[in-house]
């Protein structure tokens, strides 16, 4: 990949985070999500006192990435519009897809680090220590990829709506409910279970649980990757379609 691609991926990430000091960044991106994780694991320890808390630790560690992939990546286009760069981005000779792809690199790296950190910290406090192997690393990075692709897909909605923050929060709750991190999907009504199949992280969480119980996790890992690729393709398709729509309805500018 060319040097300009790395610059293209580094600069949006830098512009997003340079306002905060390292301490603030760490508190917001790592410590705060760990509180979210602890809350749900503590509820699980109260409601199921004799259960192995590893299930909740894994699920909620994976969900840590949702903060970054939804609220940071998901609002890329909103920020581009707010800063007045969206029109320039559309008009530039460089492809929008290249810009979108470049935006996945650092969020995937950071959310992988956050998830690993969360997994190690929470497993130390709440359950048996989880050893990070290559397979588990592969599951985490695949899940982060699909999660970030989902965030990119949502970021495209900024072309047609002003209420993206509302939508991002709604999708965060959907991940919280349907990813299988906090309760088994079998508890949900049949007609809602399909949501678990089409959202990111759910297959990754299942795959990690299977891996830790020494079962075959590869099929679920494959499905997680497939979900990521599906959302990446959807992003490419929608960016083209919604860009056209935004030109028609005049949504490229801030006002």
């Amino acid at each position, binding site marked *: 990949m060319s040097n300009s691609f790395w610059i293209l991926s580094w600069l949006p990430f830098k512009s997003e985070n340079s306002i*905060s000091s390292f301490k603030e960044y760490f508190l917001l991106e790592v410590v705060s999500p760990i509180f979210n994780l602890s809350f749900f694991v*503590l509820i699980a320890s109260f409601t199921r006192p004799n259960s192995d808390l590893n299930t909740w630790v894994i699920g909620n560690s994976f969900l840590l990435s949702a903060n970054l992939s939804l609220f940071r990546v998901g609002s890329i286009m909103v920020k581009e519009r707010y800063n007045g760069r969206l029109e320039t981005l559309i008009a530039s000779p460089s492809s929008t897809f290249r810009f979108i792809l470049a935006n996945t690199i650092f969020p995937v790296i950071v959310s992988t680090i956050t998830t690993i950190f969360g997994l190690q910290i929470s497993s130390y406090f709440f359950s048996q220590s989880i050893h990070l192997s290559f397979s588990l690393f592969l599951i985490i990075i695949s899940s982060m990829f699909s999660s970030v692709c989902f965030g990119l897909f949502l970021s495209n909605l900024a072309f047609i709506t002003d209420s993206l*923050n509302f939508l991002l929060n*709604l999708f965060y709750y959907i991940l919280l409910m349907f990813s299988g991190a906090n309760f088994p999907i079998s508890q949900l009504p049949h007609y809602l279970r399909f949501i678990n199949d089409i959202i990111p992280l759910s297959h990754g969480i299942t795959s990690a649980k299977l891996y830790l119980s020494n079962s075959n996790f590869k099929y679920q890992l494959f499905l997680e990757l497939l979900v990521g690729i599906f959302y990446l393709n959807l992003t490419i398709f929608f960016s083209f379609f919604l860009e056209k729509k935004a030109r028609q309805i005049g949504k490229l500018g801030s006002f």
Partner: protein
Amino acid sequence: MAFFQSIFYNVLLQFKMSLSRPMYRFTLIVSPIVNTMLIFEMFRKSNVSDAANYIVFGSGLMGLWSSITFSSIGDISRERYIGTLSTVYVAPLNFNLTIFYRIIGNTILSSMAFLISIISAHLFFKISMPIYHKYYFIISFIMIIVSFSIISMPISYLMLISRKSSLYMNMIEYPIFILCGFAFPTNKLPALIRFISYVLTPTWTTKLLHESLHKNLDIYQINHAFKETILLNLIYCLFILILWKHIDSQVRKNATLEVV
């Protein structure tokens, strides 16, 4: 008369301002519904005796605190951003009173989260919440409104001297859920952390609420929680008075009322 008028118009203004924001409406309406569903599913098949209280009132308390976090406390940042914070600060009506009235208005409005939790628990899961001792329940509820309003004050003050509102708002939401035992009893926490819980009024108001919902009242526990709530609120008020002097001088020295 002017005193009551200022309360009335500030509370009314807060109602209008809060409800005009889509994000507030989302936090007030959607968040308690989803929290009720999530906590219900987590408590399903558990052997917890008063699970219904934790499901319904736990999600109500979570909704109330989230609304307070993102509205009462976030309002200072919003005022700063739209450029009205310095005007409100020097207006004839005491700034502390303006903030307190708005916090009260917001807490009253945000307490609708309880109603939404009760309705959603009944609609989706057929959970009904019989109130056996309505006077105790009403007192507990009033104590929640008062205590949550008082605890919001020092946190709002911090927003006056810092522009990192997003950081603070995120950092105080879930820790309070955990420390104050909204969805599980505080005795599940390690002893050292429990010490922090005991100096937070929401811990005692939550306990008061749970105790008042039991069919067989434990008067000793209710009295204990009530006294602790009153005592802590008085200490908080004293702390607010001392803190205000420091904040007022810091605000003027560092000129933090404007965006830049």
